[in-house]
């Protein structure tokens, strides 16, 4: 019932805005935890939503990742303008549960992060350019602000705010029903920025590599995997790359759901965090 209402709402909203969701199903990708159009962990070169080059598209996401010692939640929205520019916002909560007590922060202590993103498609088309190997290329930036300044300072983070820069290359190999993305990010973020930026071990921008591979099983169903390397700036707690393996189902152009196994690596001295990611997304 909620789905029907949701679809009806977007259809009405879309019509009111004279927007037709003109792109093909699933070519929007989903919104990552930071709100950018892409996979679950990695921003892609595609512009969020289903707007064509003369339409506006949008996507909302609600994502929850349950790890052994943490609960990560992300809510956000992205708007795609004319399949060219994307603006996005996400708010993330990291609930430390029992780990908060062990770390002396208090049971259920929460870190928060605000992420405002912008992405510009430079050239190439991931879907139509099937006669060339050239991918769609976009550049993007994410302005991130964490709270809990005193705690971040105590663990050695140099700043509660930071700016990421990335370049993403995305290509649909349609004859193979395969989508590949490679993203290069320059960042100082500790655990995506939830634990601040820079640290005692390093306070300089580092190139980090991110990649997604998705095999399309039908127009609605895709399975795949992602990797995202992260800086290791804090002597307080080592940090490693994150991985996921996902199943994404696109009910229609208005609703999708993604279920994943998500390995975040070690977080805040609590050991490797292997858990479950679930995201529901809605847009036009």
């Amino acid at each position, binding site marked *: 019932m909620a789905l029907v209402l949701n679809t009806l709402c977007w259809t009405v909203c879309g019509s009111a805005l004279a927007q*037709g969701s*003109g792109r093909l199903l699933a070519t929007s990708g989903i919104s990552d935890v930071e709100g950018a159009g892409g996979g679950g962990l990695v921003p892609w070169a595609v512009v969020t939503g289903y707007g*064509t*080059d*003369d339409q506006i598209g949008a996507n909302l996401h609600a994502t929850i990742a349950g790890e052994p010692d943490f609960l990560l939640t992300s809510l956000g929205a992205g708007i795609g303008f004319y399949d060219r520019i994307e603006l996005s916002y996400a708010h993330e909560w990291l609930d430390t549960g029992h780990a908060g007590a062990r770390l002396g922060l208090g049971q259920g202590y929460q870190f928060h992060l605000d992420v405002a993103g912008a992405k510009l498609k430079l050239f190439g088309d991931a879907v*139509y350019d*099937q006669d060339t190997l050239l991918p769609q290329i976009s550049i993007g930036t994410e302005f991130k602000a964490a709270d809990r300044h005193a705690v971040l300072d105590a663990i050695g983070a140099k700043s509660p705010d930071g700016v990421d820069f990335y370049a993403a290359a995305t290509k649909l190999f349609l004859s193979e029903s395969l989508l590949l993305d490679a993203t290069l990010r320059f960042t100082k973020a500790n655990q995506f920025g939830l634990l601040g930026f820079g640290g005692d071990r390093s306070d300089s921008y580092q190139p980090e590599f991110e990649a997604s591979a998705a095999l399309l099983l039908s*127009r609605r169903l895709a399975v795949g995997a992602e990797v995202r390397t992260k800086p290791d700036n804090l002597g307080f707690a080592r940090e490693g790359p994150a991985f996921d393996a996902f199943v994404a189902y696109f009910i229609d152009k208005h609703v999708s759901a993604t279920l994943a196994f998500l390995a975040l690596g070690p977080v805040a001295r609590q050991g490797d965090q292997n858990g479950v990611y679930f995201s529901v997304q809605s847009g036009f």
Partner: protein
Amino acid sequence: MRILLLVCFLAGAGTGRAWAEPTLYEQLGGHDGLWRIVDRALTLYFTDPRLHDDFDNINRDWLQPRFFAYFCKVADGPCVYKGRSMAASHKGLHIDQARFNAVVEDLQRAMDDNFVPFRMQNRLLARLAPMERAIVTR
């Protein structure tokens, strides 16, 4: 008998045909299979409200053989397409991406209706996708 088999094997290998991967045209069911797909797709185009302005003034009996010949050629079938280029035949029609994609969606449905497997559908669509640059002019 063994020698005969060997001769057959060598003859087959020599022509390079007997062992070749069937063309996409053949995998789509040859003439009859592709004709059914095109026939269904055009039925959808001529009744799709999103495409009303594009197909309203076109004679289907004129369009269908040309449409078939183009697809047949694209799928490596034994056809000669004598029509105009995609750019020339769509010039001045102000077709936008949304209508181009509506045509794609109807073609996907036509292939579904003819039980063409998803991955085979994508192999045909991959050969047609670059047409977007020639057809979409708005």
